[in-house]
């Protein structure tokens, strides 16, 4: 484990000796990882190396088989499923490779429904959804339904949904995997912007250029973190 990157209180994500097994398959085999508040981290590695599993651990979508996960100051092991749900609703936003937008529902309501579990009323949800859509540059497309939007626009709607609740942590699993280069860089620029505005961002990517641009790269292989590089520093 690396220390000295900042006090533990500064870290929004702390993984210590995290193992995740699916039956006999070990997807993660003892991962230590600290992500400081406000950081932007690119997670890279070959297919099947455990990147998505790692992101699920960070996002509290699943519990580790062994090891400790702390997110936003909460030890996941000590939380009930209800508390984990509340943690996700309050602190974490997800963006997936498939956009997971509800068909036949306007962009505005797709984003607004993402706030359903935050406890806001419908009017408040729509207001915040409109603001989020404006942030991703789709203010004018609020009334459009997913099939009327391009792939890049759909993913931007999904990003708006993820950030509308003002999460501390934004997790993206190959957000550009289904997009062409131009649309992909639009979405990445958006994530970059959110990072600059203070959101902690962790993004899984296969795109080496994208990874190279990130201030920090975590390299995963066979369920282990094999490299943790920062811009301007040389990896071990």
């Amino acid at each position, binding site marked *: 484990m690396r220390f000295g990157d900042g006090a533990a209180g500064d870290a929004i994500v702390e993984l210590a000796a995290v193992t995740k097994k699916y039956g006999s398959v070990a997807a993660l085999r003892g991962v230590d990882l600290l992500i400081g508040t406000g950081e932007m981290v690119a997670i890279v590695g070959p297919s099947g190396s455990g990147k998505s599993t790692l992101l699920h651990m960070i996002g509290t979508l699943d519990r580790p088989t062994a090891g400790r996960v702390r997110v936003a100051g909460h030890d996941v092991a000590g939380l009930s499923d209800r508390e984990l749900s509340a943690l996700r*609703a309050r602190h974490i936003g997800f963006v997936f490779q498939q956009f997971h937008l509800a068909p036949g529902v306007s962009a505005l309501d797709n984003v607004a429904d993402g706030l359903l579990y935050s406890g806001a009323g419908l009017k408040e949800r729509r207001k915040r959804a409109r603001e989020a859509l404006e942030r991703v540059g789709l203010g004018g497309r609020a009334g459009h339904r997913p099939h009327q939007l391009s792939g890049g626009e759909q993913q931007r709607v999904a990003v708006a949904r993820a950030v509308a609740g003002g999460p501390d942590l934004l997790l993206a699993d190959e957000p550009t995997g289904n997009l062409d280069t131009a649309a992909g860089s639009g979405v990445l620029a958006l994530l970059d912007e959110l990072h600059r505005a203070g959101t902690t961002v962790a993004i899984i990517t296969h795109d080496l250029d994208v990874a190279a641009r990130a201030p920090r790269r975590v390299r995963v292989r066979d369920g282990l973190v094999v490299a943790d590089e920062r811009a301007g520093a040389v990896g071990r």
Partner: protein
Amino acid sequence: MSGLVPARLGPRDVVRTGLAGLRTRPARAALSALGVAIGIATMVAVIGISSSSKEDLLRRLDRLGTNLLTAKPGSTLFGDQAELPETAPEMVRRIGPVTGVGATGEVDATVRRTDRIPVEVTQGIAVQAASPDLLATLGTGTASGRWLNAATERYPGMVLGSEAARRLGVDAAGGRVFAGGRWFVVLGVLRPAELAPEIDRSALVGWDAAERYLGFDGHPTTIYERSTDASVNDVRDVLARTVSPEHPEEVEVARPSDALRAKAEAAGAFAGLLLGLGAVALLVGGVGVANTMVVSVLERRREIGLRRSLGATRGQVRTQFLAESLLLSASGGAAGAVLGAAVTAGFAAAKGWPPVLPAWAPAGALGATLLIGTVAGLYPAVRAARLSPTVALAAV
């Protein structure tokens, strides 16, 4: 304490999530709601129709009264047909609370449209002698022409019961019919006598005329008697003895309204079978809803995963699918109740019944659909809630 408490969804938001799935697949939702609707409509209509029919019978009973008694000859000790004394109607009239007495006496003759028709052809029509006050006692009247009076009861004239007239092809008074080897003028045609359907199938002749032209022996075969409502039972107790003081055991006393009352009671019982049929249809509808819900959960695993990633608790996912199932079956139930009520109204109108739908029928229908929605939705909802978020998200 972690201080992490999931937000509660208000009722409106629960309905919103429940509607989400139905809105994306309206045709499927409509079809599975239709299954419930058919079951509910059947049950509501069965209840409505039998209630309307019963109400109609009870109203008729009210109108016709329950104070009419009949006395007929039974059989003698030796099994022969008994005979009522000729004086019987007069004796009955002397019972204190009796307000009206009428009598008919069977005549051994057949009535035919013309003299060309063979004498054996009865067409199920009985030729009977009738006392003048029969009509008033039965509480019916003539549809055409006149009832027997002091003058016409001596002449070869007939008053036809409604069914008898129809079978003889007589529309109105004025024509003639052939009986006992001679022509009889049709004096009148009666309206249906609901408490005495045997009169409908009779051709009635005056007492004297029957004796003179048709060989009638003068013995009454049915005595109709009305009394005050309060004394019906008292009169019933003494009627047989009054009619035939020497052989009261040979007299059969009956209350014609009892048949109507029994019919009214039966209207409810008969509905039981059809109700069972409706329940089966409803059950099939419920299975349809359950099927739709199972498929819906399977198809929407990624949505479930997404909602979990957005912070939905297991309980909220369960509630969402339960709400969807309830909305599905309740909308089917509501449509079915309306349809059932409409069928009741239409059927009652066609039959001339007062449309009656007891309030417990739609209330019960609502209860049944809520129960069905819960039962049908519970298993899929629980399965949806148990899905691990990561597995749900990875679903194709």
